[in-house]
């Protein structure tokens, strides 16, 4: 390719290599673009839409969009951040995100991204869905109330662990995470704490038991610095 493999991101020149997406190139250049379903260790998914940017004036997911030379990408603008905040608010009202009782609080990417984008309220009316909790597994807990359907656990289980512990079922607003067992219980799957899938949940669905408060609230990853300044995705205690 030509020498000019750069694009501008909010006016800053960012180099990219062949095959990189906008968000990958931005991360390599140390520029934060909000995201939830994207994790650099996995194939892009493009579902949460938090990483939406304007590329040459057109809105697109920066985790799936490849940059073109001299492309003009806008990310940190009031307009786009307003949209991202609205998407976060959708995720918050869709599930039951009760941070004060959540072990993941302070290490949660949904929460930290909402702090980053200064989300002061859920804005919309709460759905208050009735979702289950699965404590069957001796080592791990599944709290479906907090699932944002990013499918990182699904992808990790298939792509890294060579298992199929998790999958999505249902459609539309009834989409939900399921586990690979007739009983529907995690204990009846081949899930293990050593699985990659046990450690990729950006929110508080997949939780290791009995260590939830080993790091006190107030001293956690995103208590110390905002997610925009926190290398991805090493989260304390994960």
């Amino acid at each position: 390719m030509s020498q000019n493999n750069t694009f501008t991101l909010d006016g800053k020149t960012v180099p990219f290599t062949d095959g990189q997406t906008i968000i990958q190139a931005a991360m390599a250049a140390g520029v934060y673009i909000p995201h939830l379903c994207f994790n650099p260790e996995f194939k892009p998914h493009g579902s949460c839409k938090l990483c939406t940017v304007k590329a040459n004036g057109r809105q697109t997911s920066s985790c799936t969009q490849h940059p073109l030379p001299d492309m003009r990408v806008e990310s940190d603008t009031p307009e786009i951040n307003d949209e991202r905040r609205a998407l976060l608010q959708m995720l918050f009202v869709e599930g039951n995100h009760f941070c004060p009782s959540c072990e993941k609080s302070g290490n949660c990417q949904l929460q930290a991204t909402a702090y980053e984008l200064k989300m002061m309220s859920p804005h919309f009316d709460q759905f208050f869905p009735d979702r289950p909790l699965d404590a069957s597994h001796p080592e791990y807990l599944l709290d479906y109330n907090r699932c944002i359907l990013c499918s990182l656990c699904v992808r990790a289980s298939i792509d890294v662990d060579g298992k199929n512990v998790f999958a999505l079922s249902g459609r539309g607003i009834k989409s939900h995470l399921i586990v690979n067992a007739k009983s529907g219980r995690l204990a009846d799957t081949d899930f293990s704490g050593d699985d990659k899938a046990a450690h990729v949940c950006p929110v508080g669905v997949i939780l290791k038991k009995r260590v939830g408060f080993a790091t006190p609230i107030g001293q956690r990853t995103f208590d110390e610095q905002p997610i925009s300044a926190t290398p991805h995705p090493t989260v304390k205690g994960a």
Partner: protein
Amino acid sequence: MNTETKKLRVATTSLAGCFGCHMSFLDIDERLLDLLQRVEFDRSPLTDIKHCGPCDIGIVEGGLCNAENVHVLREFRANCKILIAIGACAINGGLPAQRNHLALATILEEVYHAQHGLVAGFIPNDPELPLPLDKVHPIHEVVKVDYFIPGCPPSADAIWKVLTDLLSGREPELGHGLIHYD
């Protein structure tokens, strides 16, 4: 020259909350004295005024779990130029809203009839008691809310920041460390 400006009138209340946000408010400590130079309190647990009159700022802690909560919230909205939701319960229902996946009838049945140790229990029906709503709601679902201070409770610094921003005519803004949902 008289530089003394008129004090802003502030009302506060706790609906379906635990007064934790109010306790955190008191944690502004000696800054309370500064605040009192600039505001005076209308209805509030601090004054024991029973109904709020016209106010500049109303601060509401807690969500809506019963009819009385709705009456109080409406009184605040009607009388306060600026309404602030403070804390997780006011903002998303919080802890009281954890009952929302259960039918109210089931809850009342369990609490007053079925629970172990109850003998001939009955569901209280005294007209003095406010009736519970079938679900707990954040306050913005029932009235328009102008500002939100999240947290369970929000820190004294966060509350102080929002109030001083407002008193100075600035758009309130909380930076890293001050926005918290837990």
